[in-house]
């Protein structure tokens, strides 16, 4: 057992830190650190910078453009990104469909799509959820019927994040009605410009436009855009969900929020003193910091197991559960730190369109938006209730 980093790891850490410091655009950093939604242009700009260094997709195998880092290096990289308020690449291409393509796709698909992901030429979105199927994903109804070299797709997806920016969507569709729910699903890559696709924005609790409904009306999709075998899509879908779970704890980002909270607590006035002298407030912050530390070392312990070749089943669900709870507690506390100014909130676009500014301190805008947006953290990617079901079954055997 050893907690220290090797000299190589220490050097790596410096390299990462220095690179980010020198290359992260200030505007991108500013939005991310305040919990404000990204712009597509800014996100693309930053992803291209990361890719020019070869660091866009550390988890990918080397042959497809991955970094070949150890688990510890990946951890260091994630920490440094978080520490510097550097937004991670959009997950839909790099973390979700990319691994599915290089694991289950054919050579042609790999050759075409993977470089385009790395170069931010394609923006992907995820077509999993449907109105009737949330946690019960396999009950999806969107149908694909074979017609020569095409599928004809009909149906609807929902909760599709950032679909308005995307030119491609990966979709689970039903290709066989007559078998068990999991056995008739296929995995298709669909051009968002295809005739018959329409998008309807869903305005979120934060009154921002992040989510969408995507409608498919006789959409033609070439059969060659199918990943792997027909009716085996559930296997690829589960693989993807498993990948998602490990990256969702967002420890580095939460650490940064803790620091930010300490700064706010040293600025906000209470009873002639400062918020940092308020025992109740600080107790909550301290408790979160301890919980975050426990989560961090649990992630490290799991990484260590993976590096030693151990196979984990549902253990990473713990990271999702605790990580999302901590994110919510932090934004809740950030709102609380503002006193009644926490209640002042309007969508960014509206606010930036005004000529007059609020009297409130500048840091008062982001928290409520993030607080509202992050209520989804315990819902998406398999709700925390579902994650507990998974641990109960797979780890505890109940």
């Amino acid at each position, binding site marked *: 057992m050893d907690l220290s980093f090797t000299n190589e790891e220490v050097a790596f850490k410096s390299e990462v830190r220095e690179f980010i410091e020198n290359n992260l655009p200030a505007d991108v950093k500013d939005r991310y650190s305040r919990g404000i939604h990204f712009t597509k242009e800014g996100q693309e700009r930053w992803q291209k910078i990361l890719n020019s260094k070869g660091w866009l997709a550390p988890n990918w195998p080397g042959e497809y453009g991955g970094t070949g880092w150890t688990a510890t290096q990946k951890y260091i990289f994630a920490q440094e990104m978080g520490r510097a308020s550097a937004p991670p690449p959009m997950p839909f291409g790099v973390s979700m469909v990319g691994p599915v393509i290089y694991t289950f796709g054919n050579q042609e698909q790999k050759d075409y799509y993977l470089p385009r992901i790395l170069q931010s030429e394609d923006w992907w979105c995820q077509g999993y959820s449907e109105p009737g199927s949330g946690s019960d994903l396999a009950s999806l109804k969107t149908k694909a019927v074979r017609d020569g070299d095409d599928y004809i797709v009909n149906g609807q997806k929902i*909760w599709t994040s950032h679909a308005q920016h995307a030119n491609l969507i990966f979709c689970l569709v039903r290709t066989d009605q007559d078998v068990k729910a999991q056995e008739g699903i296929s995995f298709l890559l669909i051009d968002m410009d295809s005739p018959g696709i329409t998008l309807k924005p869903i*305005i979120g609790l934060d009154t921002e436009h992040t989510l969408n409904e995507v409608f498919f009306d006789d959409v033609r999709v070439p059969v060659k855009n199918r990943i792997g075998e027909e009716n085996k899509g559930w296997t690829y879908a589960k693989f993807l969900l498993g990948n998602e779970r490990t990256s969702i704890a967002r420890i580095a980002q939460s650490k940064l929020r803790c620091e930010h909270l300490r700064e706010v607590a040293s600025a906000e006035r209470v*009873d*002639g003193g400062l918020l940092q002298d308020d025992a109740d407030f600080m107790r909550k912050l301290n408790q979160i910091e301890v919980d975050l530390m426990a989560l961090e070392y649990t992630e490290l312990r799991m990484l260590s197991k993976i590096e030693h070749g151990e196979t984990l089943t549902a253990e990473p669900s713990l990271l999702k559960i605790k990580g999302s709870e901590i994110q919510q507690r932090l934004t809740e506390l950030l709102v609380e730190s503002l*006193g009644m100014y926490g209640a002042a909130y*309007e969508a960014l676009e*509206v606010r930036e369109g005004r000529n007059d500014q609020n009297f409130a301190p500048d840091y008062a805008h982001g928290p409520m938006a993030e607080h509202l947006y992050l*209520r989804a953290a315990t*819902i998406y990617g398999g709700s925390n*209730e579902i994650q507990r079901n998974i641990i109960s079954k797979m780890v505890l055997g109940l």
Partner: protein
Amino acid sequence: MDFELSEEQVLLKDSIDRFVKDNYSSEDRIKLSQTDLGFSRDHWKTMAELGWLGMAFSEEVGGFGGGAVETMIMMESMGRGLVLEPFVSTVLLGGALIAEAGNEAQIEAIIPELIEGNLMLSFGYAEAQSRFNLNDVETTASKSGDGYVLNGTKAVVYHGGTADKIVISARTSGASRDADGISLFVVDTDAAGVDIRSYATVDGQRAADVRLENVTVPTTALLGAEGKAGPVIEKIIDRATGALCAEAVGAMTAANEITNEYIKTRKQFGTAIGKFQVLQHRMVDMYMEAEQSKSMSDMVAMKLDLGYEDDTRKAVSAAKAQVGKAAKFVGQQSIQLHGGMGMTDEYSIGHYFKRLTTIEMLFGNTDFHLNRFSNLS
């Protein structure tokens, strides 16, 4: 000891419930909150006509002599519909201050107009540094000739942008945070030097920061004795806090009903999600929080009608602490149980969540009131 409503009170409740049912569908409410005004002047007129604006005022000042219990009944019903009209700001804060501390002339000039629905008020008491401490007043009022000159900035003044007059707390003597030396002034919102910047709040309402720069008011603008407003403010805010608890009870009850209905109908894995034991127990905990909040809200209304003593203050803080905890839990879990649907601004449940979130902060958050409960003898 009796928690049941009288026949008259039942009639009052029924009439507001009907108003809410007819005018406050989720769609109506969302549309209304997106208008520039943020509420409806027509509704306000209706409320005046039905006598609700005068309910909380004593007969001496021209009101209908209802007590805290009547206010509780109205607020609970309004909470069920997330009513947007500035009832708290105009009636329970501005109006109540004038009825409590005003002289005959002030009362005659304002209260009848208010009850008729022709005059809207607001109360600017908090400042950026004051958080929930009512005595933390840095806005100053200095004597000058026949009147006073006011300087300072009031923060997050609910409905400050739509009020005709704002009651402003200002320091006429004493050091910042002294209980003594605070005075109240009735300030016209169109007076020279008054700069009101309005913004939306997360609960679909409107608030404003109100900057006063050398605002001159006549002596007749002074409400009550100079420097002696501290206890008046505390009392009126306590009464409004009790009313806010009732609003929260209404909102929680509605949120629970909506959520309960949703989990009964929403199916996953071939069964209504309300059949999953974990969600059932969550729903039970939400129900218990709302029930206990209702008990505290009723208790505080009845206690306020018995007088305003030390133990009334303690009861108000206990009620707000319970309601704040419950509002947070019920609001957040309503979203969680709705899943993705809870994240949509088009759907009603999110608006309950957002209002419950601000209610938790308003007039002092849960920690503040837990400490106040403890510090009061």
